[in-house]
């Protein structure tokens, strides 16, 4: 984790790919989707990889963000300036409530994962049954023929690319800042051994809650963006378990021990799946190819690609292992 330089490099690559993608609407679409899923995976991994909280219901927060924007725009005519903060606030509040319940009763590991999945499913079926939220048909955002900055409506795709690129870089910068601070150390300590962390002065419940709220907030931000970009939301696309699984898959493939690992996973897999969807004649062919790739990668690179890269790099610059201790200093 060589700090801010890594974030600068990754940020530079994001800017460069944005500039390259300017040439073509199709490329820009791929860029936007990659950034969208990449940011989601990074935010998911702040919890799972860096704090040890495996959420299987992160789509809930994406859904909250997306539906806040879609409902606000279609039913109330509210601009994104209102609905984005609203969506993020609701998602953070929801995370706080779910987190307090889970951490109060000491849910960890699989139990926490199942609890988050349950909340996600409740939301999925509630929204699918709610007339005000368009039931399972979803909501279409009102559009006009003219571009509007206020309503975040553009004919070109590049403004959307700009927005999601900024969100991605901001997420990485915030993540990096937290990781080098006390908060990040405490998160990793909680991931590695909660009991020891508590004994060393870590308020486990408070720090886990903080992580959950931040992660949910970023996910809701992405969801809000998605609603404005696609101008359509339905339960399947923003609340479905597929979305939660995608965050998990990108993180595992990319490498969960690093902040930018999940982004690497998204960079490799999102364009791949878009491409497969375009060329495969068989329905669901891309899912099969995806599954095969996953199995192969899990066998060959269990720590993920980023984990493998850093391990290689560390091995090359490794210091020789000391054999024994020096004598302890005497404080005479």
């Amino acid at each position, binding site marked *: 984790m060589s700090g801010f330089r890594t974030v600068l490099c990754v940020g530079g690559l994001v800017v460069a790919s944005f500039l390259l993608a300017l040439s073509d609407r199709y490329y820009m679409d791929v860029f936007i989707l990659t950034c969208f899923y990449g940011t989601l995976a990074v935010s998911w991994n702040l919890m799972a990889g860096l704090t040890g909280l495996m959420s299987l219901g992160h789509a809930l927060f994406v859904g909250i963000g997306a539906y806040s924007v879609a409902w606000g725009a279609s039913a109330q005519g509210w601009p994104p300036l209102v609905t984005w903060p609203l969506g993020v606030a609701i998602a953070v509040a929801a995370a706080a409530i779910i987190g307090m319940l889970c951490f109060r009763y000491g849910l960890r590991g699989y139990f926490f994962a199942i609890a988050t999945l349950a909340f996600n499913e409740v939301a999925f079926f509630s929204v699918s049954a709610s007339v005000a939220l368009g039931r399972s048909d979803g909501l279409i955002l009102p559009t006009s023929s003219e571009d509007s900055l206020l309503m975040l409506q553009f004919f070109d795709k590049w403004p959307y690319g700009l927005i999601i690129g900024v969100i991605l870089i901001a997420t990485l910068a915030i993540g990096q800042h937290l990781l080098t601070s006390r908060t990040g150390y405490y998160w990793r300590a909680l991931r590695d051994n909660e009991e020891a962390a508590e004994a060393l*002065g870590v308020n486990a419940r408070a720090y886990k809650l903080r992580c959950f709220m931040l992660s949910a907030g970023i996910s809701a931000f992405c969801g809000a963006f998605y609603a404005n970009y696609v101008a359509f939301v339905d339960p399947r696309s923003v609340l479905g378990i597929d979305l939660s699984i995608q965050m998990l898959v990108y993180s595992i493939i990319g490498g969960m021990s690093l902040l930018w690992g999940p982004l690497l996973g998204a960079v490799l897999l999102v364009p791949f799946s878009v491409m497969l969807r375009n060329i495969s004649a068989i329905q669901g062919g891309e899912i099969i190819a995806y599954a095969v790739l996953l199995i192969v990668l899990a066998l060959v690179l269990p720590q993920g690609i980023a984990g493998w890269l850093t391990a290689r790099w560390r091995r090359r610059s490794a*210091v020789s292992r000391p054999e024994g*201790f020096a004598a302890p200093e005497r404080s005479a």
Partner: protein
Amino acid sequence: MSGLLQLRAVSKSFGGLRALDNVSFNVAAGEIFAIIGPNGAGKTTLFNCIAGALRPTDGEILFDGHRIDGRPPHEICSRGLVRTFQIVKPFRGMTVLENIKVAAFARHIRPRDAEEAAGRVLAHLGMEAFAGIDADELNVAQLRRLEIARALATEPQLLLLDEMLAGLTPAEATVMCDLIRELPRQGIAVIVVEHSIPVVRSLCERAVVITFGKVLAEGMTAEVIADPRVQEAYLGRADG
């Protein structure tokens, strides 16, 4: 005697099982104190009650004049009481320095200050060469020392050591004992839970013996060990 740590009639029950019954003793600032007793006597339960991992069913625990019984471990740690674990619990995804830095954050909020403090602890324990090594790669003796290093980095007034010598070779144990003996000079009181009577005799001025959750004897280590009831609890009755 005004104690740094005072236990007053502490009891702990698990359902019908009374693991601790009316345990009282005091530990003074800057002393090395031992809790001894046969297997299953309730030493670790007692430890967990003091460190906040368990809430006593009854009684009071005062540290530095404040009630700490039933308070969460992180709060007790910030008051200056820290424990180590019998089964070492390193943060395996971090380096040695990062492990200690986590503990140093208990007193230093800024990362740079915490890193300096962690570096000082490393230097003090002669572990500088290990700073960049993954905690995962250490052997038992090194993990035990890391456990102490982390505890010291929280800058405690009282350190609880749970079976620090278990699994160490005699040579390693000697080094560890020297390390513990140094602590009172830095103003740190120590409570050790230990099986080995020779170690306790060489290390601690005072001791309390616990059997079946009750205090059997308390006082100067040599006298306590010589007590016939203690001999009996450890070895069985001579005429039995």
